[in-house]
């Protein structure tokens, strides 16, 4: 079964996204609540996709992206970034890190956007 790692500091976001992903796609979803915990998890477990919140207290999402991109073993893991902020506010960070996939948390309230998100997850999991 494909493994998704969800990295977000809000427990209730895990609750919503885990249900959505396991019920729609049938993948296994694991949780990390900050970037350090995520990196430790990735080192010890198989991860096929990372869904990463950009805005977490005590944590540095973009540093995690850099660490993964610089590591031959992990740089192939696709990353979807999410934020409650708009794309305009965070596009500088995305462009700098070369992150390809971004979804606003609020656009997932829209069924069309939610379907796009799930399709993206499915295609990245192969």
């Amino acid at each position, binding site marked *: 079964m494909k493994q998704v790692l969800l990295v977000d500091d809000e427990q209730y976001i895990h609750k919503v996204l885990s249900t*959505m992903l396991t019920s729609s796609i049938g993948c296994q979803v694991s949780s990390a609540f900050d970037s350090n915990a995520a990196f430790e998890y990735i080192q010890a477990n198989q991860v096929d996709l990372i869904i990463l919140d950009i805005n977490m207290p005590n944590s540095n999402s973009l540093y995690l992206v850099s660490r993964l991109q610089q590591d031959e073993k992990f740089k192939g893991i696709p990353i979807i970034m999410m934020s409650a902020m708009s794309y305009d506010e965070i596009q500088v960070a995305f462009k700098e890190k070369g992150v390809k996939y971004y979804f606003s948390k609020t656009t997932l309230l829209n069924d069309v956007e939610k379907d796009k998100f799930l399709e993206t997850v499915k295609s990245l999991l192969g």
Partner: protein
Amino acid sequence: MASISELRKLNAELRLVNQTMRHDILNRLFFIGGIVGNYQKFGEKSMKLDEMLTEIRNMVKNSADFIQGMKEVEIDAVTSTPLHAINVRQIVEKMMVDFTDLSITISGSGVVLADQGVVSVVANLFQNIRVHASNSDVSVAISETNKTVKVAIADTGVGIPDTIKAQLFQYGHAFGVTGHTGIGLYVVKSMMDRYKGKVTIKDNHPHGTIFTLYFKKALL
């Protein structure tokens, strides 16, 4: 007429209010929309109906309280209303209702010079514990001297590495070049600056973290 530096300060305060409110409310709306969407699609496999309704009601109440609190901060910023007496123990007790998953004990009391933004200060510190030390015990110790009220919020979780401590209260680069940290503890520091107080962080022993808030005492 306000000076340029006063206008800059006002602008910064209003930006803080705006950013804080957007971030927190959007996350809560996402949660509400998300669990309703999951329920519509997957039924009670996703969540029991009663549980979902309770979660939504709590989240709506919590958001309404938060908006009201931030509105008062905004009014204070715009009108330069002097800080006033706030019973910090009452604020902590009020916030404990929203964090029933944490085992929180409270001792002491104190009346501080602040505004309703204290709600956000306490909520952000509890939220930080919820995320990083959710299984720990939390103690809130309030004490006062002649001029200062100290609020020490201690957890017994895994602690925060020193490398993270140094950047913990930053926000400015969160969406810029270096991508540091989030917004919650930035709000705490900004609010404490506004109150002419401070926030410090140190290790708890044998493990965990202590955030200490230093407020000016309200002279009644």
